[in-house]
């Protein structure tokens, strides 16, 4: 199916030949003819180490992680620029990789000619590029400059034209490596807009970014990589939270040995440094513990915790998802403006919802206790599940109290809007 990307146990090893190694292999090449053998040395820098990934058509997946974690290498492997050392990369459909905008523009020739060449490099025919030329020029917003040599362009014009050509190639799969940060705010907004449009058209998106907010905004799913391996693969927000926590933990660890290192409590679902532990997450309605709550009733989430080492920088957070992963809501005590003082002993934190106006279905809740900068004391994904029921099968996630009105008697009776209430 067009737009599918499948990686199976992919490994990429960069050869690292020192100058002496080079000379040796040149000598070897001339004396023993083992040039190819020399170049395929298995020792070297392992950039990607056994990564498997399955991206469905139309899905948006982000690759996140610190520098040198293998994100960009992975993107180049998917694009076909690099070949894996072992494992298989299976890509179905036309791929466009936005790795460097305007890469390959020749400074001496005009924008128009460069667009033609770049478009053809991306797999378009000459005629296709020519029919899209007007659209490209309009998006790049460079007017008459299109007939000037590219070396006269401002850097903004350069990247706009590069972006416009790349997305005009009608890819089934769009790979983006941190290129949206290069332009000004207007360019970023317009390119994000364009990417959103392509998403709606069913284009598969794989994005590498350090901007975790952007990742949460653009991607359904994220893969958190570290040293070439997958640390966590999950919902974009979850993976971003884990990455933030690790970064904050590393920083705290560097400043002083005050904070314990973040460790994995349950693979892919729960991590934290153990200073505070979440004992249990549960629900109640009307003061009674429940696992099934009717839509429109009140609801309280209870987080029972135990403090192993008193902390002064802390906050509680909750994230609601549908069982299929759709994000529903999220809030934490920092966003709600609550200043932490000191947390110790055992206790319970409660979050109260006067009216739970969710559509019927199964919901999953993530609960976390973490420091302001993200360091997780205990971050527990899918800590509890809740079933919401209703007499009417409202679609979507929101089932608000509502009423239809009209001045004319076109209906009989009053109806039963919000029937559960």
């Amino acid at each position, binding site marked *: 199916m067009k737009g599918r990307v499948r990686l199976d146990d992919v490994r990429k090893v960069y*050869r690292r030949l020192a100058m002496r190694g080079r000379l040796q292999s040149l000598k070897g090449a001339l004396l023993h003819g083992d*040039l190819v053998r020399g170049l395929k040395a298995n020792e070297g820098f392992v950039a990607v180490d056994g990564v498997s990934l399955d991206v469905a058509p139309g899905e948006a997946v982000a690759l996140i992680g610190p520098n040198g974690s293998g994100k960009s290498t992975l993107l180049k492997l998917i694009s076909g*620029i690099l070949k894996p050392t072992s494992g298989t990369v299976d890509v179905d459909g036309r791929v466009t990789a936005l790795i460097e905008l305007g*890469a*390959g523009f*020749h400074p*001496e020739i005009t924008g128009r000619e460069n667009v033609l060449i*770049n478009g053809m490099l991306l797999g378009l025919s000459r005629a296709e590029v020519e029919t899209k030329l007007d659209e490209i020029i309009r998006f790049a917003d460079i007017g008459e400059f299109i007939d000037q040599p590219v070396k006269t362009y401002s850097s903004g014009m350069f990247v706009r034209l590069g972006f416009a050509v790349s997305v005009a190639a009608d890819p089934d799969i769009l790979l983006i490596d941190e290129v949206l940060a290069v332009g000004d705010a207007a360019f970023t907004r317009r390119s994000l807009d364009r990417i959103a449009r392509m998403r709606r058209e069913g284009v598969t998106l794989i994005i590498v970014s350090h901007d975790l907010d952007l990742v949460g905004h653009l991607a359904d799913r994220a893969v958190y990589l570290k040293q070439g391996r997958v640390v966590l693969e999950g919902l974009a927000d979850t993976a971003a939270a884990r990455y933030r926590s690790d970064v904050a933990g590393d920083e705290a660890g560097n400043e002083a040995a005050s904070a314990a290192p973040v460790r994995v409590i349950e693979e892919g679902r729960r991590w934290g440094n153990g200073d505070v532990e979440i004992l249990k997450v549960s629900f109640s309605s009307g003061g009674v513990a429940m696992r099934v709550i009717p839509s429109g009733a009140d609801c309280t989430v209870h987080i029972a915790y135990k403090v192993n080492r008193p902390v002064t920088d802390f906050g509680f957070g909750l994230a609601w998802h549908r069982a299929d992963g759709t994000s529903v809501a999220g809030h934490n005590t920092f966003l709600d403006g609550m200043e932490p003082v000191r947390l110790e002993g055992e206790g319970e934190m409660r979050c109260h919802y006067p009216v739970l106006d969710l559509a019927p279905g199964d919901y999953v809740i993530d609960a976390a206790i973490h420091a302001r900068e993200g360091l997780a004391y205990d971050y527990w994904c899918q800590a509890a599940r809740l079933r919401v029921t209703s007499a009417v099968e409202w679609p979507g996630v929101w089932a608000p109290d509502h009423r239809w009105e009209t001045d004319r008697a076109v209906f009989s009776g009053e109806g039963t809007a919000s029937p559960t209430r």
Partner: protein
Amino acid sequence: MEALRVLWRHRALVVVLVRRELAARYRASLLGYFWSLLNPLMLLAVYAVVFTTVFKPRMAGAQPYALFLFAGLLPWLFFSGALLDAAVTLVDNGSLLAKVVCPAEIFPAVTVLSHLVHHILALPVLLVALAGCAAAGWHPFPWTIVLLPLALIPWLLTAGGLALAISALAVHFRDIRDLVANLLNLLFFGTPIIYTLHGIHSHVLWELLRLNPMTGLIRVYRSLAFGGYIAGPLEWVIAMGTGVIVWLAGAWLFGRLRDTLVEAV
């Protein structure tokens, strides 16, 4: 064969890139494409003056000498220029290679083809010179020159194969360009371009020069462009065979190195 298939599939791109190469070279220059004509014209003028007034080489079958020399230099300049540029083409296009998915073969191919275009643009100078000499009665016009495209086939294949090999090796060993430049110098004097084989009296040297594959190529070319006769079938077979073998070897080497290129540029 793989290289040939890739190039054929991307032929439209190759054509556009060749045009870019030519356009970029003459952009912002006063005379533009005229340089392609002017460079060989100047060369011919210098040779004509030097070899009619300063030296007067008396070699059988090489008169007028300036014209003989010019007809041999043209394909050689195409050949050596293509190979020297091939040594830097992948490095120069490294940003495309590493940032955009495109087959690496096209860059050495574009290099060779753009030098071929220069060569073809220089041919009118040769034609005019030949016609001039014929009109003056110094040298009969070699009508065999209409067959010149045939002689260009082995030149193109040989240059192409070597360009593939050199471009790929140069990515790993950056000093290849200097090596190539020196080897080309050696080869220039080891090939009967400024002399004819008839002038060689040492038997050993004569045999050595015969063994040089470029000898066959130059003789096939010059017999048509200057001599006015068609070289014997054996010479054609040797020239064509050289082209095919060099192309296959170069393409094979390139194929072996292809996967290592992107990482190294």
